[in-house]
């Protein structure tokens, strides 16, 4: 790609300053989609000297630095214990090992990629995103935030939770983007359902979750209603890989199967 400069700032303040100077100064994550998304830049700003590649146990949550590779994320014993390992199951289905050694969790989340397989389960859990200059918000709010975020994503914080979970990536071959992905987690007796790659970025199914969590026992009949509501509540669209109707059927099917599994 075309770039005038490559910079590896020593502080976040310096990185932020460089990014503020010129809209054509580009923040690097892993850089795997860089040449497709950004054919030219003034300066490429690399955060790899800032110690953002740690995974820390905060007690009630796990803090993951933005520069942690998807492969290190996948191999982390700390993340394996969260909600039956749903995050590991999802991240290990993203491309191959060499890709995941390069790609970063920060790049994956900050990019708000509609096809992301990791955003969907992170949304089904309680996840916060932390930026420099200091600001934090829920992943849910970040995903629905309109416009460009010019701050630097430094960490994601995933609340520890235990309980059953379900993840399904529907794909045509091992290395394809998801036609759709579905993540369901039962967190503190509450069902959380997220669906991504519809093809827009992952969303929680608010109305369907309300119905699933209204205090009634999740019977076969109620599960069918929740699944139906999911497919009505969210917007599905057609792309070259799948029609909106097909995505809708997939969403309904896998929400049903997922709820059957996690409510056992």
């Amino acid at each position, binding site marked *: *790609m*075309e*770039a*005038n*400069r*490559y910079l*590896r700032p020593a502080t976040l303040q310096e990185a932020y300053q460089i990014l503020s100077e010129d809209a054509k100064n580009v923040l*690097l994550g892993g*850089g*795997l*989609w*860089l*040449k*497709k998304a950004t054919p*030219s*830049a003034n*300066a*490429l700003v*690399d955060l*790899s000297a800032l110690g953002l590649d740690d995974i820390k146990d905060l007690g009630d949550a796990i803090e993951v630095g933005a520069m942690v590779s998807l*492969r290190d994320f996948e191999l982390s014993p700390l993340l394996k214990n969260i909600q039956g390992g749903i995050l590991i199951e999802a991240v*290990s289905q993203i*491309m*191959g*090992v*060499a*890709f995941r*050694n*390069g790609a970063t969790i920060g790049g994956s989340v900050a990019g708000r990629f509609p096809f992301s397989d990791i955003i969907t389960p992170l949304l089904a859990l309680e996840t916060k995103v932390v930026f420099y200059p200091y600001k934090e918000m829920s992943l849910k709010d970040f995903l629905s935030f309109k416009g460009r975020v010019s701050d630097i994503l430094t960490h994601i914080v995933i609340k520890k939770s235990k309980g059953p979970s379900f993840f399904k990536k529907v794909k045509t071959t*091992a*290395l394809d983007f998801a036609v759709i992905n579905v993540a369901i987690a039962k967190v503190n007796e509450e069902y959380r359902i997220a669906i991504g790659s519809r093809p827009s970025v992952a969303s929680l199914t608010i109305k369907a979750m309300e119905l699933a969590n209204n205090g009634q026992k999740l019977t076969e009949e109620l599960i069918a209603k929740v699944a139906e509501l999911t497919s009505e509540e969210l917007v599905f669209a057609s792309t070259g890989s799948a029609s909106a109707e097909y995505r809708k059927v997939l969403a309904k099917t896998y929400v049903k199967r997922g709820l059957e599994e996690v409510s056992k």
Partner: protein
Amino acid sequence: MKVNFNLNGQNVSYDINPGEYLADTLRSHSFLSVKKACDEAACGACTVLLDGRPILSCSYLSARAEGKNVTTVEAVQDDVDEISNFFADEGADQCGFCNTGLALTIFALRKELKNPTDEDIKHFVVGNLCRCSGYQAQFKAIKKYLEAHK
């Protein structure tokens, strides 16, 4: 700009453009074992090892290799010969274009995973595409190579 890294055991210092990718840098210095096929992080042909771990050099900025160890097949010739022989025995070779990237991935797999299951092996090599052969013969060859190193 300059980038300094260790390439196959030797310290090198190369002139690069800030937006240059490692596959291009290596190929411009005659490391033509590093293949470029999809050039968009999808096929695995450009795989090299960075500090012992496989990465896609077509999508890794050369500037980021500063101070790191980069390995191509030239540095692990004995292992690659051995892998090639297992491939030949199983008839897994056809055009051979994907072989160098795959060989490095298999070498890294052996170093990283102890007693891998069939699923572990498939999971590790899934990013290396081969458009000639299907994957059964390659899979058998990989298993025999790993078996020989137990």
